[in-house]
């Protein structure tokens, strides 16, 4: 069983479009995250979210918004896509306070903006 899954795996779209990436975790974790990985493999956190608190990295444009319909899902909506949004986006989840805070990552979604 896949612990953290993302769809789609690849997303190619035109500049200016609005798109969403879905993430689901079946680990029962309370906290989920979105990361952006650029072409040089640099991994930067964008959001962390649990049912109590959304923490936003202040450098993330407000065109990006997380939406959580329930504890097992955290989707990423992106409005007015720009060329610089091209990257691989990773979803992750964790359960802080149970021995380790390790995060389990999804397989990633490669977004290409043309």
């Amino acid at each position, binding site marked *: 069983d896949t612990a*953290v899954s993302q769809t789609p795996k690849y997303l190619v779209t035109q500049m200016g479009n609005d798109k969403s990436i879905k993430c689901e975790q079946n680990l029962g974790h309370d906290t989920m995250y979105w990361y952006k990985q650029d072409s*040089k493999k640099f991994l930067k*956190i964008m959001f962390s979210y649990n049912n109590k608190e959304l923490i936003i990295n202040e450098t993330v444009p407000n065109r990006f918004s997380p939406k959580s319909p329930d504890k097992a899902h955290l989707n990423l909506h992106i409005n007015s896509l720009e060329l610089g949004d091209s990257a691989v986006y990773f979803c992750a989840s964790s359960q802080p306070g149970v021995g380790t805070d390790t995060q389990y990552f999804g397989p990633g979604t490669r977004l290409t903006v043309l």
Partner: protein
Amino acid sequence: GESVGLHLPTLSVQEGDNSIINCAYSNSASDYFIWYKQESGKGPQFIIDIRSNMDKRQGQRVTVLLNKTVKHLSLQIAATQPGDSAVYFCAEAHPPGNQFYFGTGTSLTVIP
């Protein structure tokens, strides 16, 4: 910020040799550290972690060393195998919020 202008450090080792991957972290308040392995086309995968009250922790074929004085973390892989070829990241977390901040990564290539 973004790693514009930075190259991904690389390390090449012969199969069977030991590998040492180094990481310098930035925040002296960081109290939890994790090493991740990322294979091509996949998400990062947990390898081993260590808390700031420890200097060393061992796993299966891997050892993490923490030097808080110089804010340095290392990952040692014993008897490196071709399957160890990947990009390795260290990540640090500190209160408040305990969000993780990742290093730039090191690309390890194992030569058969």
